[in-house]
């Protein structure tokens, strides 16, 4: 039991350390309501995207097309809203239609990824690289590279509204994380995903339909990108072909930091959530402290390598203790 939870314990310790560091650097102003609120508006985008990345990493895959899929889904939503409700007042029906269309788009992309990987046996890096280039190309064709902006107020509520003082994006993220945790922890599909990630051949011979598992994994990953799209275009009040490109590394970083093994089979949603909070605190703290955004980018890289090195050393120790 302790072993199972030791990873999350380490993460919480790191979280406490990071909080202490930021408090020392920035003083108590770091915990002002405004700062905490702005952090909880920023985190959900990356959070939902990281969930989309994480579920594919659990099957020892990867999904490079999440950003492209988010943008295309957002652009389709934006096009429908700006065409059908050009004066951008109140239009709940149009917003609902747009959201449905966006979900449909990302579901198709997810199923395409799943089909390429499960049925054609193409490696996930390659398949999702192909869809990524195609989909981001389509996004450019749809927008000609311009920004589409001006949405009805129901749409803006998704990314900027608050319920009982809690930002709506944060609630959406928590809902997604909760559902994914439920799928992974309590449902047969979750068990199959972990099994497949550990050993696809053994899973196949225990009577699991591997192809169906992969299709569902990439479908869920795709659906999560449409949720990100809703939050993102609502927060920016616009959609564009190249928003959020720097998120790709961060989703992998967050997943790895949260205990997801790049080889598949291990990792839990709770770890990912704590990792996301850590990343957000570091980024907001450095920003408040006046560190350049590019320095932060370099720092992410260092953190990613550091985490992998520590993991490698822990694994080596575990192997040695078993051997003894």
């Amino acid at each position: 039991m302790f072993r199972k939870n030791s990873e999350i314990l380490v993460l919480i310790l790191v979280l406490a350390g990071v909080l202490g560091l930021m408090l020392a650097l920035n003083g108590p102003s770091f915990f002002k309501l405004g700062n905490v609120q702005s952090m909880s508006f920023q985190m959900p985008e990356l959070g939902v995207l990281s969930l989309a990345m994480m579920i594919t990493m659990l099957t020892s895959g990867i999904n490079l097309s999440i950003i492209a899929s988010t943008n295309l889904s957002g652009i389709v939503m934006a096009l429908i809203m700006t065409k059908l409700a050009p004066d951008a007042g109140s239009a709940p029906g149009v917003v609902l239609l747009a959201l449905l269309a966006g979900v449909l788009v990302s579901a198709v992309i997810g199923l395409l990824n799943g089909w390429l990987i499960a049925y054609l046996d193409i490696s996930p890096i390659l398949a999702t690289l192909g869809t990524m280039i195609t989909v981001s190309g389509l996004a450019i064709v749809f927008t000609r590279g311009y920004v589409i902006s001006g949405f009805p107020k129901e749409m803006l509520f998704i990314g900027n509204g608050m319920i009982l003082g809690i930002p709506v994006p944060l609630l959406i993220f928590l809902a997604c994380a909760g559902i994914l945790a439920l799928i992974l922890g309590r449902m047969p599909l979750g068990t199959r995903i972990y099994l497949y990630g550990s050993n696809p051949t053994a899973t196949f011979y225990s009577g699991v339909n591997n192809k169906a598992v992969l299709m569902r994994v990439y479908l869920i990953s795709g659906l999560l990108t449409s949720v990100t799209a809703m939050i993102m275009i609502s927060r920016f009040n616009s959609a564009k072909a190249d928003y959020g490109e720097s998120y790709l590394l961060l989703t992998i970083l967050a997943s790895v930091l949260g205990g997801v093994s790049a080889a598949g089979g291990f990792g839990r949603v709770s770890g990912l959530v704590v990792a996301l909070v850590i990343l957000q605190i570091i980024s907001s703290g450095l920003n408040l402290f006046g560190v350049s955004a590019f320095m932060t980018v370099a720092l992410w890289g260092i953190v990613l390598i550091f985490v992998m090195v520590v993991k490698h050393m822990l694994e080596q120790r575990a192997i040695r203790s078993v051997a003894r």
Partner: protein
Amino acid sequence: MIKKITSRYEFLVFMVILIFSIIIGLINPNFFSLENILDILQNNTLTGIFAIGMLIVVISGGIDLSFTAIATITGYTVAVLLLSHGSQLNIFVVFLIAAVMGTILGMVNASIIYFFKIPPIIATIATQNIYYGLLVVITQGKWLYGFPSWFGAFVKIKIFSLVNANDVKYGLSIVTVIWFAFIFLGWFILRKTVLGRSIYALGGSEASAQRAGFNILRLQLFVYGFMGLMAGIGSVIQALLVQTVAPNSLVGKELDVIAAVVLGGASLTGGVGTVLGTVLGVLLLAVMSNGLTLMHVPSYWYKVVTGFVILVSVAAGAWRKRAISNKKVIIEAE
């Protein structure tokens, strides 16, 4: 003999290039002019040189997403030196500095991958961000230009030159010749040396290669070091061609290069791939983009077409592999 040639994957790519070329040539006969062909070769030297480095990495079973960041760093260093000590340098020293720096940065990747057993894709995404982030912080994203005149003169050297109908000179650029030299070097290493064969072995199965007595560390250092070398050379080529060094000019190029290598038949799982295939992969993308321009297709369609061609060719490759393995099963069953 003929069957042996036609059954190769490279032949398939060649046929696709040929079909594309004929279609483009029918719509716009300018495509087949020697000037246009030489132009395509010169404009794709950069992708071509990067692709040779990437091919070797991919054959070894790895991947490198950081080489554009490495190239940006070496390009910047060279540019700074050119601006400060321009009169004391010559073209060989410039290439040498970029090559050495690139190789070292590539070997850093190899060390991280080897010693900490980090998957190459994660390790190189991380180093890409470190290299690139630090570079922008240090240089503050400035563009550098105004290099010495000898640096501009070198790129204008032509092996042979001709004059077109409008009295404009064209010819085989020295830059293209440098690319050809590296194509030969890549082919020689992979085909004619023990080192090349051991890289294939490493990509086929790392565990087997290790048990067979190969020094994995030395191989990885070579593979990623060579990628860094190509990045360094490529950065000088880029500086020569555009006479400007900008921090963001190579961003996103890594995907084009991987696409070219994969289109050329290399497998991302390692152990498979040829220099000929990679050159054809580069040419396929080059002909496509040139053709779209000549056919007056708006440039924003280019990415969709590229992605689509990649998906189709990868899917076709997967079908072909499956058909072959099915045939094998039938033979074994008989």
